[in-house]
């Protein structure tokens, strides 16, 4: 056991670097994903068939193929002639993660906006609000509170998804664990790794719970701050109950 801790002590700087890369991928992927989710979630609600069709094609393309297919596509195909895009591997990872989980998020955004009660939409018409006013001042804040639990689940999925990026040469936490395994025993290296991932996932969940409580407070709805700490992560599928 002591040799394990000695090896861990020696490998600690690299392990910290790995955690930082994993966090960068998670943060970058989540940022891109939320932009993609809101953009395409809103586009998919347009009446214009071209805008809506475009949104649907993009969403289905990224939801319908596996994350790894997208990762390999961006990694192997983008540097080739018609594109000639030599992205750093970390950007490639962020691109694939953000687009993949963003597409799932777009369905969540679309569904949540549709779930805002009809009376709210009618009220904005009665107040003769413009389309943008209606969306940003009335509908979206309410939809935001509805979508946060699902977005929380997607964020955890995204974090878990970052563990495959070592296949495209990125040295993330999982890659460092594979190195640590050689110096320690298997149980120690991967057990520690799972604990680190769990800790990150749990912290993200706490943050998202706090965001949800804040969003509800701004709508004048209940929810104690204390509950955000004690609440266990709310489990759900990425887009459970939504098909397509």
């Amino acid at each position, binding site marked *: 056991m002591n040799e394990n801790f000695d090896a861990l002590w020696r490998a600690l700087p690299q392990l910290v670097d790995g955690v930082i890369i994993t966090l960068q991928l998670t943060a970058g992927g989540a940022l891109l994903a939320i932009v993609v989710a809101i953009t395409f979630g809103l586009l998919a609600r347009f009446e214009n068939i071209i805008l809506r069709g475009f949104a649907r094609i993009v969403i289905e393309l990224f939801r319908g193929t*596996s994350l790894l297919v997208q990762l*390999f*596509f961006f990694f192997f195909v983008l540097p080739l002639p018609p594109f000639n895009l030599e992205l750093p591997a970390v950007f490639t990872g962020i691109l694939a993660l953000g687009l993949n989980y963003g597409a799932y998020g777009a369905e969540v955004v679309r569904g949540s906006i549709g779930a805002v009660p009809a009376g709210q939409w009618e009220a904005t018409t009665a107040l003769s609000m413009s389309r943008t006013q209606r969306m940003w001042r009335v509908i979206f804040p309410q939809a935001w509170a509805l979508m946060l639990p699902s977005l929380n689940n997607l964020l955890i999925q995204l974090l878990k998804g970052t563990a495959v990026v070592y*296949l495209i040469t990125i040295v993330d936490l999982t890659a460092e*664990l594979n190195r640590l395994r050689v110096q320690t025993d298997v149980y120690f290296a991967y057990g520690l790794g799972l604990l680190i991932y769990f800790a990150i996932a749990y912290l993200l969940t706490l943050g998202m719970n706090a965001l949800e409580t804040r969003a509800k407070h701004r709508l004048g709805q209940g929810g104690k701050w204390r509950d955000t700490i004690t609440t266990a992560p709310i489990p759900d*599928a990425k887009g459970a109950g939504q098909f397509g």
Partner: protein
Amino acid sequence: MNDDNSFWSWEHAAAAFPEILEKFLTVTLVVTIIGSIIAAVLGLAIALGRRTAPRPVSALITLVMNFIRMTPLVVQLLFAYYVFTTVPPIVLGTIIIGIHYATYMAEVYRAGIDAVPPGQWEATTALSMSPGRTWTAVIIPQALRSTLPALANYVISMFKDTPFLMVITVVEMVRQAQLYGSKNFRFVEAVIIAGLIYLVASYLSSLLARRLEKRLEYTTA
């Protein structure tokens, strides 16, 4: 081949397609089906265990379940691969992906069980049914029906996660595409074919899931 500089080569596409389709049929589909069966059965066991076991046991089940759900499948696969070195990777991978998704399906079952109206429980008490019969004859049949669409969704998710098995040397469809690419220095066709097969398969399965959902709506109404 003289068109090596063009973006898309039909010759490479034709050469890669049979290999990729074969792995899709013999590995990806098989892992998804067996993994789903493991997940569906184990998930139900977890959900029942959490409901019926004494407090400390059910708290422990919940903790382990959350831990498995919140940690990456890839690390779990690697962990198991280096611990159970004698088990063939494909068998191990199928079991691990089944366990991973069982933790998701357990929550679906839980919601389904919670959705059974209290009157049904009261009726079984009134008829003095044993706990065993209450579950098997009254609660589970009703709970299962409302859970099927969500379970189908997780099967589709699992199907898209099967390429993760390549980290423990399993050659499934996407890995086969990558192998073709690195053997011939032609990634475009192989990766796009793998993507297209995924697209077609998940489109068909989501149609199937939607039909299932519609049918259940009629029978439960």
